[in-house]
């Protein structure tokens, strides 16, 4: 069985882990995985899909970089009789064009983070600063939306500053530094919400350098659950993270298997769990578990 996998690229540790896990899962099942890295470009993904079709693979996995613009190429795959499975993000094409989508719910992730914060601070007034992901990317848009929904109805919670940190540690740290300066040395800030853990890890450094205690003076909540955030959590410097599992391929392969063997149509959306981790979840243990996954 040959499966083509069009990955977005390798812009973060999380994605590297997803790639690793996908390769591991394929190997486990004896599947020949054709891997294509799109360097963050949709046009490259479309090209890759077309090449897969031209090669005549048995199925295609794609982690779409953006939701729109897939109708044509998915149609071509359908014409060629090749099932397409979406990993980690979905597309807004007609549902008949793909077999299934294995994704988490990005809005839900933000929501979980928001809810956690609302529950944690209770009635206390809390000024939140937000580190957004890359402007225009769907996780940035949806995680922002979800978080805002999560804190809705809590008038004491207020997002006072929101700026992009491009999903990177360096920018996370730099932007946090400017937040701290702008908000009275950080004394106005009660919590930090970062769209991914990497930015949170960078921001934690900035908070420490400003002479404040992350996790105590400023609460830190973020998304992804990469190993390094658990280290921070163990040190009491981060408070919560929402897991985005890198194992999207496992369920996808299972669905594909069932479909090819028994012609069993899987559900159109296989949602992965968005698990909340806090300091009470034995962070060091999770860290050890996750360390080897290629994050």
């Amino acid at each position, binding site marked *: 069985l040959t499966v083509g996998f069009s990955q977005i690229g*390798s*812009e*973060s*540790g999380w*994605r*590297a*882990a997803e*790639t690793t896990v996908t390769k591991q899962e394929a190997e486990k099942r004896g599947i020949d995985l054709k891997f294509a890295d799109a360097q963050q470009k949709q046009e490259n993904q479309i090209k890759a899909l077309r090449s897969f079709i031209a090669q005549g693979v048995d199925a295609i996995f794609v982690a779409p970089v953006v939701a729109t613009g897939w109708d044509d190429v998915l149609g071509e795959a359908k014409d060629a009789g090749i099932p397409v499975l979406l990993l980690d993000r979905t597309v807004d094409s007609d549902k008949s064009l793909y077999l299934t989508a294995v994704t988490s719910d990005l809005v839900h992730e933000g929501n979980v983070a928001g809810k956690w914060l609302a529950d944690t601070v209770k009635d206390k007034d809390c000024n939140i600063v937000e580190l*957004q992901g890359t*402007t225009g990317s769907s996780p940035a848009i949806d995680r922002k939306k979800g978080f805002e929904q999560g804190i809705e109805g809590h008038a004491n919670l207020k997002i006072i*500053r*929101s*700026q*992009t940190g*491009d*999903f*990177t*540690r*360096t*920018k996370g*740290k*730099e*932007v946090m*530094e*400017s937040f701290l*300066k*702008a908000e009275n040395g950080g004394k106005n800030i009660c919590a930090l919400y970062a769209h991914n853990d*990497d930015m949170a*890890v*960078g921001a934690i*450094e900035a908070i420490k*350098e*400003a*002479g404040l205690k992350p996790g105590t003076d400023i609460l830190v909540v973020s998304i992804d659950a990469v190993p*390094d955030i658990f280290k921070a959590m163990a040190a009491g410097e981060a408070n919560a993270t929402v897991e985005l599992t890198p194992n999207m391929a496992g369920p996808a392969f299972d669905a594909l298997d069932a479909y090819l063997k028994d012609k069993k149509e899987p559900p159109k959306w296989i949602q992965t769990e968005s698990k909340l981790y806090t300091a009470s979840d034995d962070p060091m243990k999770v860290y050890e578990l996750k360390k080897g996954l*290629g*994050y």
Partner: protein
Amino acid sequence: MNGKYGRLFRRLLPQIITLIVVLVLNVLLFPDFFNISLQNGRLYGSVIDVLNRGAPVALVAIGMTLVIATKGIDLSVGAIVAICGAVAAASTVAGHSIAYTLTLALLTGIACGFWNGFLVSVLNIQPIVATLVLMVAGRGIAQLITEGAILTFTDDSLIFIGSGTAFHLPMPVVIWVLFGAVVTLIVRRTALGLLVEAVGINRHASQLSGVRTTALLMGAYMLSGLCAAIAGLIVAADIKGADANNAGLWLELDAILAVVVGGNSLLGGRFSIIGSLLGAMIIQAINTGILTSGFPPEYNLIIKAVIIVTILVIQSPRIGDVGALIKLIKPGQTVGKGSHQ
């Protein structure tokens, strides 16, 4: 002596004025901009942030200035930053000493520069394409070293480079200021500066005059590699980890911008390292200003573009030449000034 410094000052006046204007804008947006306090034995404040965060661009701009002076360009610096950060991280994680790690990282940078220089000066490949090769492949090499993950390390002496303090200043600030001063002195106290300028203006004529153009070009790219390596160490040490995916991303554009805002011509020839360093600070001051201003991030790029265009229009060789501005508005009119031969 006085005359010499007077000339230098006049040459840098536009940059100094621009920097002041940008800083004043920052103060208008954020009155506490110039507040500096001492925190844990280290100066703390937005201005210090500008100096500190501007370190990678400033360092890379030093090498880029010389490369541009030779009529070249180095697009690979961002990738070299990633490679050297990854090399350093991998080396400490493997348990090597700090001296070994630093040497290895810096040599790697120089080797990358050597490769670029070889393509440009010996194989005569156009600089933009020659360095494009490493720009594309280099990030892959860095990812190969870290396997796509962020390679974190805990070696305190390495971390010191990024977040340590010397003379109450963050280490990156000390490094770029010192390194900039050393390179400026070397280039200006020897004949190197003159020879580089000659090569950049007319390579063939310089060669016929006995200038070793190949070696000089090679040297310029190697210096650029070295600068990128130092920047790579700082970037990695700053976050205690090597992020092969994002370290130095688009840094080449910022560095080139810094060189040009610093008043250097992209066509090669006359150059000023101090100008480029001022340029780097101007750009960082803009970036920091945008971050502290509190505008939504959708506007970041527009603000940056508008400020850059404004700066360049003001620094344009045609400013003061009101005619040019009028002509821009209604082309067809003549300007009462001679064009140069």
